[in-house]
């Protein structure tokens, strides 16, 4: 029953009734909507007076009408183009006194008006959809949505209005009056008030996780608070030759000031020079002219492996060798143009184990434990190349989301040409791996 018509005030109340807050015990209301076709004001006008094109037709006498005159009529412009396309009228451009419009047919049937009349009578459904859309396009017809609420008496229906309390107060507790009061229902679907809090940076939260993993595995944190590094520690000590592409201007940030490093452990430097240029320790070396000037050049470090080199050198200077496990997570710099997948500054994660007799199997086992702690268990290893490790392996993991194997890290066993000049004992192997935090 359309209650709204009987109680118009009630309709207003329903509209203002906020559905979520509605107490379901007093009244139950269900919302439904229906659609109906109605005439626009213009459509109504046409039902009254006839369509523009019909009116145009009617206003043309037997001898025709000058176009200029026709255009002055209220329905002139709109009606004329429609009448022309319906072929109800024709235009004689060369008539005397200017272009003249004549009736092209004897009589016309104002089908548009007929259709609109049907709609007005509530029989819009009898029209074809094509017609309805055509009239809607001409803005003569519009679809109206009607929302109705079906209301029923609820379980706690009463004709008296009781006031509901919102919350407990200290007075109610003290006096015990809460026992006799009705409380408004809570709307559990709404959100609460978020506490005012600060936030940690998401990338750094991941860094904290990695730190935790390394510490759990017994790895000691390396001091990496030096962004500026000399080419010596960043490249030469790692057995990366001086003409290697990575040392190019376009991959590495070189410093203008301070341009050169001044202090090196000279004995060690001499051994590094020798292994590059002449070989030694069972290696042929690279056989090129090693230049001190090149090694002196200061750069923004391209990897934290430079720090690992410093640490391994320090380890080698100890009287007696003790096995070590090191890690670092810190910033590195590459001279790249920025785009969606490349940054000039990013964070590198590195792990290093130095001990007697470490094998490739040990490296793979360590990686498995490391990645398992990250929730990555399916691993595959692929042969790769780094100037300072041999064998080298790229680490791949299966990504469920992307449904393919993706690279998650790089690893290898440091070359003897890097370790032996430092003074590490012959049987000591150093395995290492790295990945980027951002990935």
């Amino acid at each position, binding site marked *: 029953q359309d209650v709204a018509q009987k109680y118009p005030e009630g309709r207003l109340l329903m509209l203002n009734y906020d559905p979520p807050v509605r107490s379901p015990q007093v009244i139950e209301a269900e919302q439904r909507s229906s659609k109906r076709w109605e005439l626009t004001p213009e459509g109504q006008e046409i039902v009254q007076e006839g369509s523009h094109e019909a009116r145009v037709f009617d206003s043309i006498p037997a001898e025709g009408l000058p176009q200029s005159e026709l255009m002055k009529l209220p329905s002139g412009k709109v009606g004329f183009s429609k009448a022309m396309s319906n072929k109800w009228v024709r235009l004689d451009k060369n008539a005397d006194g200017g272009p003249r419009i004549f009736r092209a047919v004897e009589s016309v049937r104002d089908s548009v008006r007929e259709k609109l009349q049907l709609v007005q009578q509530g029989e819009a459904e009898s029209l074809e959809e094509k017609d309805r859309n055509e009239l809607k396009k001409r803005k003569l017809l519009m679809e109206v949505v009607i929302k109705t609420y079906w209301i029923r008496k609820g379980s706690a229906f009463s004709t008296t209005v009781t006031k509901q309390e919102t919350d407990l107060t200290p007075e109610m507790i003290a006096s015990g009056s809460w026992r006799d009061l009705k409380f408004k229902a809570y709307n559990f679907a709404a959100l609460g008030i978020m506490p005012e809090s*600060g936030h940690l940076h998401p990338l750094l939260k991941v860094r904290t996780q990695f730190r935790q993993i390394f510490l759990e595995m*017994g*790895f000691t944190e390396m001091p990496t608070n030096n962004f500026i590094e000399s080419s010596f520690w960043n490249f030469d000590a790692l057995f990366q030759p001086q003409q290697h592409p990575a040392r190019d201007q376009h991959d590495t940030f070189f410093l203008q000031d301070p341009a050169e490093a001044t202090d090196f452990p000279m004995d060690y430097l001499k051994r590094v020079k020798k292994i590059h240029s002449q070989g030694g320790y069972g290696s042929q070396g690279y056989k090129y002219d090693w230049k001190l000037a090149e090694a002196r050049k200061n750069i923004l470090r391209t990897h934290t492996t430079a720090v690992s080199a410093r640490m391994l050198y320090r380890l080698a200077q100890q009287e007696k060798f003790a096995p*070590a496990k090191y890690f670092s997570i810190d910033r590195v710099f590459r*001279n790249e143009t920025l785009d969606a997948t490349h940054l000039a500054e990013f964070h590198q994660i590195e792990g290093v184990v130095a001990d007697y007799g470490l094998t490739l199997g040990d490296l793979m086992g360590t990686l498995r434990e490391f990645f398992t702690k990250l929730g990555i268990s399916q691993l595959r290893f*692929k042969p790769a190349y780094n100037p300072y490790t041999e064998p080298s392996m790229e680490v791949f993991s299966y990504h469920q989301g992307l449904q393919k194997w993706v690279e998650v890290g790089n690893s290898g066993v440091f070359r003897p040409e890097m370790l032996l000049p430092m003074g590490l004992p012959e049987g000591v192997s150093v395995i290492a791996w790295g990945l980027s935090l951002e990935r």
Partner: protein
Amino acid sequence: MPTVSVKQELLFQALGRRYTDEEFDELCFEFGLELDEITSEKDIISKEQGDGKAEGASDIILYKIDVPANRYDLLCLEGLVRGLQVFKERIKAPRYKRIMPANGDVQRLIITEETAQVRPHAVAAVLRNITFSKDRYDSFIDLQEKLHQNICRKRALVAIGTHDLDTISGPFTYTARPPSEIRFKPLNQSKEYTASEILDLYRTDSQLKHYLHIIENKPLYPVIYDSNGVVLSMPPIINGDHTKISINTRNVFVECTATDITKAKIVLDILVTMFSEYCEKQFIPQILTLMSCFSETPSSLAKLLTRMCLKSHVTGNGNNIEIEIPPTRADIIHACDIIEDAAIAYGYNNIQMTIPKTYTIANQFPLNKLTELLRQDLAAAGFTEALTFALCSQEDIADKLGVDICSTKAVHIANPKTAEFQVARTSLLPGLLKTIAANKKMPLPLKLFEISDIVVKDSTKDVGARNQRNLCAIYYNKNPGFEFIHGLLDRVMQLLSVPPSKESGYLIKAAEDSAFFPGRCAEILAKGQSIGKLGVLHPDVITKFELTMPCSALEIKIEPFL
């Protein structure tokens, strides 16, 4: 990683079987290659220049394969196929032998001392009775280009020249002459030019213009002549037209001139061994003895290595292996290189995983430990952590803060790609201000912090600079909120157990600083030094960073509190 483009059809023909894309991808994974892209000439042109230009281009499927940067023997179809076939035990590893010419006369290349001034070294070889097809010829040219780009470091270290031996006669002379005295018809030109004219001629050539600088300003230019004075080439720029090779060439004279003799030999070896499918050259066997380091018998180890083109057999008392290193494997310089190859042949994923028995107690780096603790508490205090770049423009740390760049003791970068990376930051403040500028739509107040490193010059360090761990916080709102920043400082000191006292704790003293509003700036003294400043930022600073609201800031160094 260098990329080699090979026609799929040719590849399968040479390998003797077809592969599905997945099968080939798997083979590459095992061997250490990466199938980067499957495309065609048409696709490439389409991507680079649009579909219109791609009309009529070849549809032939190309495989783009990434090869390790140190494997020059895999830079062409011939090398890839050879490596894979031996790996899969379908062919035996080839042995390269030098053969004497039929008439017993060996070609000679005489190097004169003038070359020492510009390009001292040269090596040469002859490929006899070679048969080219269009594909082989293209491959020959491509390999030279790949080598030029990689190991030759864009012709600076080594330059390759290949010549039709039948158009010239030895002995050949490699010398250096003043540019005006060198005259010849360069490749594909119609007349003769002097050397200087040639350099001018190619100044606008998209390929060759990059190499002119290698010899341009030298008094003498390198040049190779035959016994009749015919110019073979003017390395590293261009060959002579007279000796150009074609598909019909039967004998090729290869010369490599260089500033690095080791690399020249490697390049020559590669070029010659790759195309000696069609002729042969001898190698110098290197005998290495290896002790087994994974639990494989010496004989199975020898078998594994042979699959990697490192022919091996067991010697001595059955515990040693003798390995022949072919000239194609310039990357083998130590026994560890051989071990990697053995592991690859064994299959990395077949190796048993073990955990090292290394027992160590872990230690945190104290500065990082302190940083982690402070971070947590600053977030708990209602501030949001930011992560900003360590590199910035000069203005960011100087002009925008009202100081001169020279007084900042900043580290300057020599080759930044943009002005945003001119210097390393000497303060965390610019980064945080830029962060706010990028987040103006966020609701106020904005409370940010960062605990991270800045960089300053320090002549006591071996590299001349050091990092310093700073803590910086800013409060940005309709009112400057100095009391909040001050309160944060008090809280930080409380966390560090530093009491607000002159004698044993910290003290705040009024100070002046161009970055702060006059009268609203203070210095913080603790541990016997000034550890930083706090205050209301100067309106100039605020506008220079494109901000509109008042702002107060705090920046201190935390290393004294370790």
